[in-house]
């Protein structure tokens, strides 16, 4: 069981990598949000693993914070998705580039 923590971290890295590819490649904002959730989870996984390694609660607490942040982020982001779909009739982020400063 002791070796498992290292493997968990590798798993977290792989998941993070997948999420990153998703964000980079997908143009649909819903998919980008999903990919971001994957990355959050990967990060949370690494925290939990680290907490388990030293048998301390801090890792889980960080995970809790990540979850709460994800909740806040998703709620706002999805509201924005609704707005965007309404205004632009499209979910393509590239089409929304007129939003730049």
């Amino acid at each position: 069981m002791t070796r498992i923590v290292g493997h968990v971290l590798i798993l977290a890295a792989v998941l993070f990598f997948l999420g990153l590819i998703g964000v980079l490649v997908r143009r649909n904002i819903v998919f980008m949000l999903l990919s971001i959730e994957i990355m959050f989870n990967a990060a949370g996984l690494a925290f939990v693993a680290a907490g388990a390694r030293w048998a301390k609660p801090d890792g889980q607490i960080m995970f809790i914070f990540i979850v709460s942040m994800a909740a806040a982020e998703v709620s706002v982001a999805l509201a924005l998705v609704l707005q965007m779909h309404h205004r632009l009739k499209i979910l393509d982020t590239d089409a929304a580039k007129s939003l730049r400063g």
Partner: protein
Amino acid sequence: MLELLWIIPALPFAGSLFLALLGRKLPRRAIACLGAGSVGICALLTGLVAISFIGHTSSHSFTYTQTLWSWLDVAGFGPSVSLHLDALSLVMILVITLVSFLIHLYSTEFMIGDADYSRFFAQMNLFVGSMLTLVLADNFLLLYLGWEGVGLCSYLLIGFWYGEPQNGYAARKAFIVTRVGDTALAIALFIIFTHLGTLRIGEVMLAARDTWPAGSPIATVTALLLLAGAVGKSAQLPLQTWLPDAMAGPTPVSALIHAATMVTAGVYLIARTNVLFMLSPAALTAVAVIGAATLVVAGFSGLVQHDIKRVLAYSTISQIGYMFLALGVGAWSAAIFHFMTHAFFKALLFLGAGCVIAATDGEHDMFKMGGLRKQMPLVFWTFLIGACSLSAVPLITAGFYSKDLIIWKAYCSARGSVWLWAAAIFGSLLTSMYTFRMVLLTFFGPLRKNATKRPGWPMSLPLVVLAVLSIAGGLVDLPKNFGGGSALTKFLTRDLPSFVTAPGRAVHQGMFGVFAACVSLGGILLIELLMRSRMYEKISESPRAKALHSFWFSGWGFDRLYDLVLVSPYAMLARINRDDVIDYFYTGLSRLSRQGWRGLCATENGRVRSFVLGIALGAAIIIGLAVFL
């Protein structure tokens, strides 16, 4: 009487200031009275001072110094505004004030039609004041003030008719070329002060004699720099190019500044600093060689000019060459003697030429004149006397005594040589030729242009006085052979070193004198023959002579050389670099940052994915750096 010395330079300055401030509101008669009057009183005062000065002294050296105020006093450098009167400066101020007064008198009529009558006299007065300051200065700094002051006046007066770009060019050229010499003089002053700790001329001479061994490099360098200053002011080789162009000014200006007084300032400077030159045989030889070379070179150029004033200009250069030659061979007083006679007869010639030019409606070209002898008898006769004096016609003219002295001393001096003598005698031949070429072209031959104006008394009187002086001026230094006592030489020898004769050469003076006289008379006859027999035209038709003619005409190509080597490159550099090459660096810097701004703007394109890409790239790079470094 000597306490009144300060008034002599102060009076013209005051006149100048007054005319400059109020001249435009005064009537012409008042301006004339003020302008000529201030200098006239000056001349009178100078006479009184001279009498008083000579009365003070019997034979021992006597000088009078008058300190007006302390100019500077910093860190051991304390030149004051002081005047210094000794035999040399006395002779100088006598000649200067007398000639100046006559020329001012002449100008009152000559310039009467000019709109800027008061400006003319203001500047002329300023010139006289500066010249007197130069001559009377007790220290080098004050001398430098006068030196630059006369340069400024020369510039202002050459460009007096500033509407013509040509005149402006001539004025600028004169100013800048002499300024080159002035800079050398300034450097000489730096050396003198740094090594001798004072700029008072008398103290400098004593200190130099004590501290600098004869022939030491420092003395040579100093003397050569002083020589450079003198060369610039006196239009000697290689800085002679400005003087012929300076004839663009009004004729009285040419007479006063560019013939009688200012251009001889170099001679005065060298005579004044004779100790430094005596310490440096090389520099003294340089003076003689420059003088000899200049007198020949300018003589040739004078021979081919068309413009009557340019002939006189080259003649001036040539005659100052004689003075330099005299200085170079140690005949100090002879140089001053020639300065004096030259001032008389050259002023006379210029004023005569001015009459001619005024009478022919501003015609300068001698080939368009002719036969004016009958129409302007007074001008003709006085001009002829001047020409004779310039050509050193024996016995009767002042020029003969002064020039003959120089020619003889060039041979017999301890520093002289046959070559210098040969150059001088050849120059004498040239002098006679160009002088009488000018006389023949102007006053003889067919009448080409009628004289429309006769000079009135203010113009005639100076001619007559100067003609008398051109004849009688020689009397002040009549040598023993002619029954005189060499009075001027004796007088000047108090301040100037006495002449040293080479052993074994001081024989046959009579024969040399006769030979020199024959040469000058021969020159007159030769040109007369050439002109009469139309040989002159024939010779100048041949192609080789033509090339030579244009070479001499252009003053031996010095102008072109300087233009090519100095003027054009500088002007071109200034033109190319108008926008300042260093500014390009800063402009480039700002352009670079602008480009950087553009580049960064391009990344901000509004695509979320490219932002993410940037973040990921940054993370990859940073982690990569952390891992692998």
